[in-house]
């Protein structure tokens, strides 16, 4: 059975709906990708699973209500990645995120805290800002060892050194005494990973782990992650906007657009037969060597900002080349079994 099963996850910041009924599953030892432009709600989804969103007042306002509140009856823009800082009232999370039989969303904070860092861990996007500048690398690793594995003093330090060694940092014992600003970007990201895997989590969530790094380093980090997944059998939820990364590491892919899954399929299937125009657009907008250089890139016009409410039709419609009347006939539903998509014009695309 699935290790993590997300069902109809909704996250709203006050009137703004960031995640609008997302469902997907992550199986033991698999790598699942959440793909989409920034602002599509993928980061928020991961934070919601980790229980790192500031607690809101309760259930998210139903979209209609939200619409009523928001200016000119227009669906609000999805919040920025730093969404967790966005609203004083905090996020209203609903739905279920069943991890190994228990719904994480309904766990009391204390027990959630006990799982965080041990059962499920997370690697963040910006390695520099994600490490405490005034605390040594060693401390930042050992504190999690101490918390979840009760390791203290030398034992903890030795373990920390091993971890650094495992994520491929040379001369670990020296590094332990150093501070984040003394390390290179790649190194920092490795440290973050070391922290994440310190307690051998069963689910690892990586939120754009490579975006802040330059290409050569990216590859190394991806290798590292892959290797960890294979050796430890850890499940990995990979959040990225980069299809290259997806192709490189994922087994299954969920494409998000404006807070909803618009297409979801095994990675080869998706690359072979992209069904949703948005997915097509994404693929179209990455340069490919196998096609002749005369082939122009086909970027998606418009920006994530011009969306309409799913209620009024396909949120992607405004940017879609194949937009037709049907697109704005009420909400498009998810269709398909192993390869699901959310597009009324699907057959024409195929």
């Amino acid at each position, binding site marked *: 059975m699935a290790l993590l099963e997300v069902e109809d996850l909704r996250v709203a910041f006050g009137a703004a709906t960031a995640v609008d009924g997302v469902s997907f599953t992550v199986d033991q030892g698999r790598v699942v990708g959440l793909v989409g432009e920034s602002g599509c709600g993928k980061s928020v989804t991961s934070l919601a699973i980790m229980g790192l969103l500031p607690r809101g007042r309760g259930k998210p306002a139903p979209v209609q209500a939200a619409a009523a509140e928001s*200016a*000119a*009856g*227009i*669906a609000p*823009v999805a919040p920025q990645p*730093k969404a967790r*800082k966005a609203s*004083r009232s905090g996020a209203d999370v609903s739905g279920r995120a069943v991890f190994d039989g228990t719904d994480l969303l309904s766990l009391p904070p204390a027990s959630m805290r006990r799982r965080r860092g041990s059962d499920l861990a997370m690697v963040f996007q910006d390695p520099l800002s994600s490490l405490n500048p005034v605390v040594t690398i060693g401390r930042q690793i050992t504190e999690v060892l101490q918390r979840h594995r009760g390791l203290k003093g030398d034992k903890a330090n030795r373990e920390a050194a091993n971890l650094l060694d495992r994520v491929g940092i040379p001369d670990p014992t020296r590094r332990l005494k150093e501070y984040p600003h003394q390390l290179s970007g790649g190194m920092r990201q490795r440290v973050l990973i070391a922290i994440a895997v310190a307690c051998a989590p069963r689910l690892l969530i990586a939120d754009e782990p490579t975006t802040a790094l330059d290409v050569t380093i990216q590859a190394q980090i991806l290798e590292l992650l892959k290797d960890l997944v294979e050796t430890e059998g850890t499940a990995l939820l990979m959040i990225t906007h980069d299809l290259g990364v997806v192709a490189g590491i994922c087994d299954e892919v969920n494409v998000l657009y404006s807070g909803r899954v618009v297409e979801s399929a095994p990675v080869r299937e998706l690359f072979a037969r992209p069904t949703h125009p948005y997915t097509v657009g994404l693929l179209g907008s990455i340069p490919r060597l196998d096609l002749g250089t005369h082939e122009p890139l086909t970027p998606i016009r418009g920006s994530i*900002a*011009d*969306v*309409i409410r799913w209620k*009024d*039709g396909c949120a992607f*419609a*405004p940017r879609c080349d194949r*937009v*037709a*009347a049907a*697109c*704005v*006939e009420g909400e498009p539903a998810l269709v398909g079994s192993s390869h699901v998509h959310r597009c009324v014009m699907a057959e024409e695309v195929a």
Partner: protein
Amino acid sequence: MTTAKIEKLDRLIEAHAEARDARSGSLWRQSVRRMRRSPMAISGAVIVGLFVLVAILGPWIAPYDPTAQTWGREVFLNRSIFPGPRPENWLGLDHLGRDMFSRMIIGARQTLLVGVVATLIGFVAGALVGGGAAALGTFGGRWGERVEAAVMRAVDVALAIPMLLLALSIAALMGPSLTTVMVSVGVAQIPIFARMMRGSMLAQAHSDYVLAAISIGVPKSRIVVAHIFPNSLGPVIVQATLVLATAIIEAAALSYLGLGNPDPGTPEWGTMLADAQRFLSGAPQLAIYPAVAIIVTALGFTLLGEAMRESLDPRLRRQE
């Protein structure tokens, strides 16, 4: 039929576009909008507004000549008899039989004058010093850097002397007078303004649009004058609002130290407060009126300044 649907789509998009424009807008416009929502800003603005109004209209509002010792024979300092509020004198009489209410009203103008002039002195001089230093440091080559270093050292040294102390020593040189208060308080503010101006100019100098401008070969002098300088003023202006509050309080302190405006003719809150300290047991009201006035006014400027600062500060803005 289908056209109708398309129209609907277009309508949706338009509507949304408008909403988006409403949401964006220039930094200043945004901050102004944000301030309209903040109670801090509103209350501050109201207080300041009233204060300025009184300061301007003072002579027309004040029922009597604030310097005329009209009721001089009704006050007995040596028996601590100070007639309090009554129909003809709403706030009673001061220790020389002058109408307290009129004095408070006219005092507002003097107080504002002191605050504004002092702040202006600090602002202009500070902005020039700090701005000049920064400009030289960034574009003046090695020589410029040296000058900047020297100037900023000097500023640091000045900063090493507590503000009131700086004001005090300057005032001690000039002897007590209204000008003394304004100049000494103003001069004491120069270092801070200089530092701020330099800071915010350096920030601007390293911003992308400046690099862009340089790369396309816009003359440096022009960049400084036309882009960097005006763009760096924002935070400094905010600081000025805050300094106004400080200036008013510092002025009161100087008066207390006997360096204030000694001319009995022109009432000024700081002087009035300092002068009335000695009647605190016999006639506390003489001290309390100006004290409250000063506190409220200073509070007004502080609130306004803080609100402006918050609304301009991107870090704090995030948290809105």
